[in-house]
């Protein structure tokens, strides 16, 4: 008996999470990257607390975006190289849901973790405490969009030996709207204004990405596997 679609998704989710947890370095590296780049800014911009606090929303969001970019390439590469991806494409299960499960697993070990540790880095840069909940929430929403969009780039470039630079060129333009509204939300709260409009737009982007990105990822995977 073939498992139901949801049972299959939870199987993929479990498989991906176990695989990720058995390589804890891959989970830790983006966080370490985040910490190190945050430490670069006081060195480059000078340690004036007021200036850093002003730039903090943008800095934190750009680093989150770059950390996400670094991990995007890995989403399908291992499974492409060992033939698992062929098996996924042949499976009688809906590819849309399978791909969604893949991206969800990836988001749980990258975006979610990044959002959870972001308060620490926010404090390092002197972001006002009142803006921290919105920073976390905007990163939660935004990083999920980034993972889905990054998945499209990963699926398109997985057949190439070195997809690293190309994937950045392909998906960075699509990261921009997320960056704009994400950092604007944090800036608004830090400036004493309401951020709900920005967060609502991020939420809308997430809905849009959940609806369409898996279709694009599935189509891109079929092209990549055919080459």
């Amino acid at each position, binding site marked *: *008996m*073939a*498992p139901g679609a949801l*049972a*299959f998704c939870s*199987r*993929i989710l*479990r*498989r991906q999470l*176990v*695989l990720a947890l*058995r*390589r804890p370095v891959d989970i830790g590296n983006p966080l370490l990257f985040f910490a190190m780049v945050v430490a670069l800014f006081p060195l480059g911009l000078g340690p004036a607390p007021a200036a850093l606090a002003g730039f903090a929303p943008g800095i934190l969001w750009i680093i989150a975006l770059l950390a996400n970019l670094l991990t995007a390439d890995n989403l399908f590469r*291992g*499974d492409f*190289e*060992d*033939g*698992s991806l*062929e*098996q*996924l*494409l*042949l*499976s*009688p*299960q809906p590819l849309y849901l*399978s791909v969604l499960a893949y991206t969800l697993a990836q988001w749980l070990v990258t975006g979610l973790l990044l959002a959870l540790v972001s308060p620490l880095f926010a404090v390092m840069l002197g972001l006002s405490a009142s803006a921290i909940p919105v920073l976390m929430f905007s990163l939660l929403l935004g990083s999920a969009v980034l993972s889905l969009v990054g998945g499209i780039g990963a699926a398109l470039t997985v057949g190439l030996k070195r997809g690293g630079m190309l994937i950045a060129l392909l998906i960075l333009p699509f990261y921009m709207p997320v960056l704009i509204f994400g950092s604007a939300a944090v800036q608004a709260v830090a400036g004493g204004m309401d951020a709900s409009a920005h967060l609502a737009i991020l939420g809308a982007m997430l809905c849009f990405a959940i609806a369409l990105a898996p279709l694009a990822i599935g189509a891109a995977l079929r092209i990549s*596997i*055919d*080459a």
Partner: protein
Amino acid sequence: MASLLEAVDLGLVRGGRDLFQQLSFEVGPGQLVQIEGVNGAGKTSLLRILAGLSRYGFSGRVIRHAPLMYLGHHSAVKGMLTPRENLAWHISGEGSYSPGEIDDALARVGLYGYEDVPSHALSAGQHRRVNLARLYLSRAPLWLLDEPFTAIDKGGVAELEALLVRHATAGNAVILTSHQSLSVSYPVAMLDLLTGLAA
């Protein structure tokens, strides 16, 4: 006799060369088909086309009447997972197997005692065997196997041949590529990429 797979007017062009043209055949229950051809003749490409993985440079139609299982060059075995996990969480989404079924299949391919060893500690042949264990679990009527005997020892080859014959005898079908001829007491239909299926 209902056919399990029909290929109509298949043609394949790769790198400006015609690999095959107007290849039509039907595979029905009980058939054991071996694809013949020299290196580069397009055997793997044909299998991938039959499976539905490949469309590039391809013309014609493939009609699949039954679920299929495809084993390709790559073993699709994750080094970070144990053989047991590899089968239980297999990404082909084909079936849900009980732990008993999985252990039984692993025992049949000679991996008894290796169920919980991380797969990266296994040899290349053992990797192939983890993959072949899927054949013991599979309920798909149509098997497409690309060089299934690669890296398998003599005893394993004999067992695999017996398994293929059992599968065909039970009213299913197997299409495989292999450079060695099968030593089975069962009619093997030869599929030549240029002349089609010999009766």
